[in-house]
């Protein structure tokens, strides 16, 4: 019962957050976004044709009327059709979000698992050559632009100048084989670029944990490295790990990875969002902003519940 009350309270506190995010985003869309009316009327429009196009796009309506309409769309989750392609926005998202998820999830999971493993190693061997080597690798990974990594990986794995094993572009999930074929190089790129950040972050967490009294005591009792790292260090570091992982989820589901999707020609949500920003496709943007805000609220709640699950001392108030 207390849990239900907590859930309702958190959902209620999420409403101002959603309103704030949507209001600021809509303000930016309306006053700083591209004006499509001149795009849609062809090469020699009259002033009347431009006015008609503005009316069709709703630009002639006062801001508050448009924002109220946006809120109504959000409640019904019916954002109409994309201004660019005429496709229903719901359908566009339904097509794009699973693709982004399938694209980024393997890299996200591998990047975090490898990051945690390397960070544990580095923390355990703190100050020694292994720690320094892992940290040097992390800094290199963090220093190279994602764009460069993508282009180099494409040249290395997908061009006649390299192995030419994988496709440069495209996406197919019709079979596990096809999925593996298309997801491998993007996944490698995601892992490479995220590994440095993840390793550094997790190492900092683990180093602090390794220095605690109970770890020293366990060592004194002759516990092995595996037991200590797994049972005492990792388990006690779950709060920051959960925070990092959970807060990455909305961007994985909704934002995808713009660069990966652009350069590998993958029809995911990141590319959809970027195209909507550059073309001023407000129905798509409104849907993406709403969905992202909503996901953050849900993630915050799940995050709190997970804190409580891994650490009973945390109270849900």
């Amino acid at each position, binding site marked *: 019962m207390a849990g239900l009350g907590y859930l309702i309270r958190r959902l209620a506190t999420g409403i101002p957050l959603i309103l704030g995010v949507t209001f600021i985003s809509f303000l930016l869309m309306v006053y700083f976004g591209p004006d499509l009316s001149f795009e*849609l009327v062809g090469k020699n*429009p009259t002033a009347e044709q431009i006015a008609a196009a503005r009316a069709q796009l709703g630009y002639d309506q006062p801001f508050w009327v448009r924002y109220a309409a946006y809120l109504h769309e959000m409640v019904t989750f019916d954002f109409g059709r994309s201004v660019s392609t005429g496709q229903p926005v719901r359908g566009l998202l339904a097509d794009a979000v699973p693709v982004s998820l399938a694209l980024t999830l393997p890299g996200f999971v591998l990047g975090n698992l490898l990051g945690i493993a390397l960070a544990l190693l580095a923390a355990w061997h703190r100050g020694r050559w292994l720690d320094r080597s892992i940290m040097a690798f992390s800094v290199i990974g963090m220093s190279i632009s994602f764009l460069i990594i993508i282009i180099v990986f494409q040249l290395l794995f997908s061009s006649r100048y390299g192995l030419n094993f994988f496709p*440069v572009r495209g996406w197919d999930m019709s079979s596990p084989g096809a999925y*593996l074929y298309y*997801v491998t190089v993007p996944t490698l790129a995601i892992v490479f670029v995220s590994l440095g950040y993840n390793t550094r972050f997790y190492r900092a967490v683990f180093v602090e944990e390794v220095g605690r009294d109970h770890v020293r005591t366990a060592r004194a009792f002759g516990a092995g490295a595996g037991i200590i790292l797994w049972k005492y260090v990792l388990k006690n570091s779950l709060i920051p790990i959960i925070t990092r992982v959970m807060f990455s989820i909305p961007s994985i589901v909704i934002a995808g990875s713009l660069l990966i999707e652009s350069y590998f*020609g993958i029809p995911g949500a990141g590319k*959809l969002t970027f195209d909507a920003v550059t*073309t001023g496709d407000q129905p798509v943007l409104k849907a993406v902003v709403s969905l992202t805000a909503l996901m953050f609220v849900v993630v915050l709640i799940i995050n709190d519940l997970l804190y409580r699950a891994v650490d009973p001392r945390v109270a849900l108030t």
Partner: protein
Amino acid sequence: MKLRLFLALSASFLLAMAAACSRPGVDSEVKRYRHSDDGVPTNIDPLQAATVYSNQIVVSVYDTLYRYKYLARPYVLVPNLAAGMPEISDDGLTYTITLKPGVRFIDDEAFPDGKGREVTAHDVVYSLKRHFDPARVSQGRWLWDRKIEGLNQWMDAGADYDAAVPGLLAVDDHTVRVRLVKPFPQFMNTLAQGFAAIVPHEAVTAYGEGLGTRAVGSGPWKLERYTREQVRLVRNPDFRKEPLDLAYEGYDAALHGHLGIAHLDGKPSPFVDELWIDFIQESAARWASFTSGREIQMSGLPVEQTDIVLASKDPVALKPEYAQRYHLDTGPEAGLVFTVFNMADPDIGNVPDPQRNAMNRALRCAMRDAFDWQQRNDRFYSGLGEVFPGVIPPLLAEFDATLSRDSVTHNPERARARLAEAGWTAENLPTLDYGLVASVLGREMAEEFRGYMAAVGIPPEKINIKSYATFGDYNRALRTSELPIMGYGWGLDYPDAENVLQLFYGPNAAPGSNAANYRNPAYDALYEQSSVMLPSAARSEIYRQMNQMLIDDCVGILSLSRRRIALWHRDVLGLPDRQILGGFWLRFVDVK
């Protein structure tokens, strides 16, 4: 521990090998042609076929009444869905067009029984009327605006599709009669554009705005899949079986022998089963995809690859290692880039005061003299562009190669003299905004422009670079006359100089395409005179006079045509050409 590590590494290696070997199966029975484009067709409804990317899809899946010959250059119109060339009345106002009988739309759920019905003259009338339906946004309406008798009135009266338009009638199922308000020699060219593609009303009723991403036409291809990354077309099995007549299409063994298409003569197109078109805006990825063999033709050579791939630029030739693998086609683009001044801006344009008017003209001419076209060409177009005076580009038959090149010759001394003579000093010069779409390239071009001006005594702070986040915002600035100096580009809609000369016709001033707001009664009179004339020496002479007026009035810094370089693998048999809002060549392509 070591065993676990070994197992983990082995598993990873095996997984990677499995991924590399899991290339989706290729059906050897399917003949597939694949190419990449550098832009995306955001909407393939014929109402929105405004870009080369949309247009090539639209003319592949829909029929147009006319099309351009495959190989003949300059471009020549020929019947497509029309049975022949139109009967044109002596006054040039009435066009009677007969349709080929028995042409059918593809089978689609939009039709009552799912079976495509015959394409009739009523569909042609309906498709043109759609552009004038106030409930729909059309980018092609301007082509026929106030040109077809009764069509604008039909729009103003509420666009009742059952109401007849006197100038746009289906005489019977296979005959369309169009009556123009005044002669419009380019009318037939407009009927070869994607805007004029023929759409069944059933599809519009069934899918509405959904036609932006699906197609129900009668063209040689059927749309199988549309995404913003790729379009897949499959052969329309019911497309009319018309044998390819290479001689009729302009085949010249000397020019086209190397294309390997001679064996296609007499066979009905299309020659491949599938067309896959990838849209890859990032040039590095596009090049990698092309060279890996995934695409077998690409839309254009990226500028950054020019020096790597070309052995020479004049004439354009590939290095041997590339020539072994690829075909090359090159020529001036069907369009131009230039800079115009806002003639309605009192700081630089026409003003009632004769003295200030003369000063402003001197300023414009000085800026033109200060501009170094050759350097612009070398720095930004790999030296491959063609600089020419005026606005009639080299691709057009009306291009005058004998025109003086004085207006495109870098002449900083004369620029300084003009400024001094007119009384301009660094202090009294107006501050002028130079607009650009925010990008590194745009910024570099603007800074180069500022550098040219500084070299003749126009201080950099007098050229204020105004950046717009997107092309849409920049377009709005052009249409609302916000800017005194504007970079401009124009792709030809049809191969007739009228299409560029209308850019300076007074009544087309902003928000129309005359962003320069040039209003010259003598120019307008010549334009109106020539706009009803068929191609002739007399019309070319009028065009020449209009072109000269633009040069003499220093309306802008005119002009450069970029060079188009198309590459395709030697396995592809055909001549790619997407110019003039084209795409008809896709029905004739073959692969080995």
